[in-house]
């Protein structure tokens, strides 16, 4: 599994960078500091975020037994996959590591995908207030792409 950057670097064994490749690499490196800062901020937030998310989910959705503390922890830890995709500027990493897996797993388990998406939307609100503006702006597109993908997963036939 190669990111676009790996592919470009590998191709340079055979030829020089094309103008398009060079422009994309320069744009990537120009935004690299903010991507690195995002990683630091997420790491700092992680210990308290799971507890806060669990509290919020219990308060807003008291009738949903799905929202356990371990699940809140798993969702917060999944931000690492989002962060990695942002760091590499390649959402394919997130799709293969996380979204595609959920698309197969949730219907098979009889779990309503929109309930997982709802939990992510609560997490989104928490992140928006806890990350600095530039870090959130770097993070938001990949995060929103993931939550939108969760909306397209068919509901399980078992769901009541």
């Amino acid at each position, binding site marked *: 599994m190669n990111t676009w950057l790996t592919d470009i670097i590998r191709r340079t064994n055979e030829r020089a960078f094309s103008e398009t490749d060079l422009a994309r690499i320069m744009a990537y490196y120009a935004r690299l500091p903010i991507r690195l800062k995002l990683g630091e901020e997420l790491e700092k937030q992680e210990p308290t975020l799971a507890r806060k998310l669990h509290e919020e989910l219990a308060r807003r959705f008291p009738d*949903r037994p799905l929202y356990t503390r371990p699940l809140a922890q798993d969702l917060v830890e999944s931000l690492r996959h989002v962060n*990695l995709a942002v760091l590499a500027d390649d959402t394919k990493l997130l799709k293969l590591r996380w979204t595609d897996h959920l698309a197969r*797993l949730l219907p*098979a388990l009889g779990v309503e995908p929109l309930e997982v998406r709802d939990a992510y939307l609560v997490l989104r609100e928490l992140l928006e207030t806890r990350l600095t503006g530039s870090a959130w702006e770097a993070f938001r597109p990949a995060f929103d792409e993931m939550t939108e993908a969760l909306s397209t997963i068919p509901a399980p036939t078992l769901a009541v």
Partner: protein
Amino acid sequence: MTPSVEPPLRLKGNAYARPGYFTTDVAKGVTRTPSGQRVCTLPSEFLLGFRDALIYECGKAYRKVMKAAGKKWGTQFAARFDKELNALYQTRVRELPAALVHTCLADSFSANGYGRLEIDMALCDFGVLVVDLHDSMMPSLVREADRPVDLLAAGLLGAVFSHLSGETLDAVQTECPALGADRSRFIIARSDAITAAEEFIDATEAMPSHDAILDRVRQAVA
């Protein structure tokens, strides 16, 4: 509302899709997985050579030998899969929901290059599983045959599902790309039922249909 999931839902993603799941130390000539398991590439030339040598040495018995090799492999594979999943979810594999284990098993098959696995649980209550394996290696090498050729995969699947279920199960291949199908299809059930199905296949001149073999298996498990 989603019904309560017991045990609680855990989401860890596709651990096999992490970047650099297989890492090769070029200086040492060693490839390992994150758990330290050493793996190596067995190219198509090896698999074909292995099959040809078995046919030469064993004659018609080569099918049993290939399947037995698949079972041995599957036993080791299942133990490694169990260990990896246990480490990831901090829960014994038999206590995890079957759908989760099957999704992770399919992820593992894909990452290892064994093909895309689909598990049909519709007949599970009758003690029968139907498994499809898309783009499996051996049928892509043996283009034409009068019997299914995915014997290693049949042995592998039988051993893996034996490990996961805690029962002695076996698998028989009922459809194969070498016979014109678009994927390999297997029936997994109790060993004696699969033996009965294999005897039925051996006694039939043309390869019986999947449904005919499934009927035999269901009669045997009833």
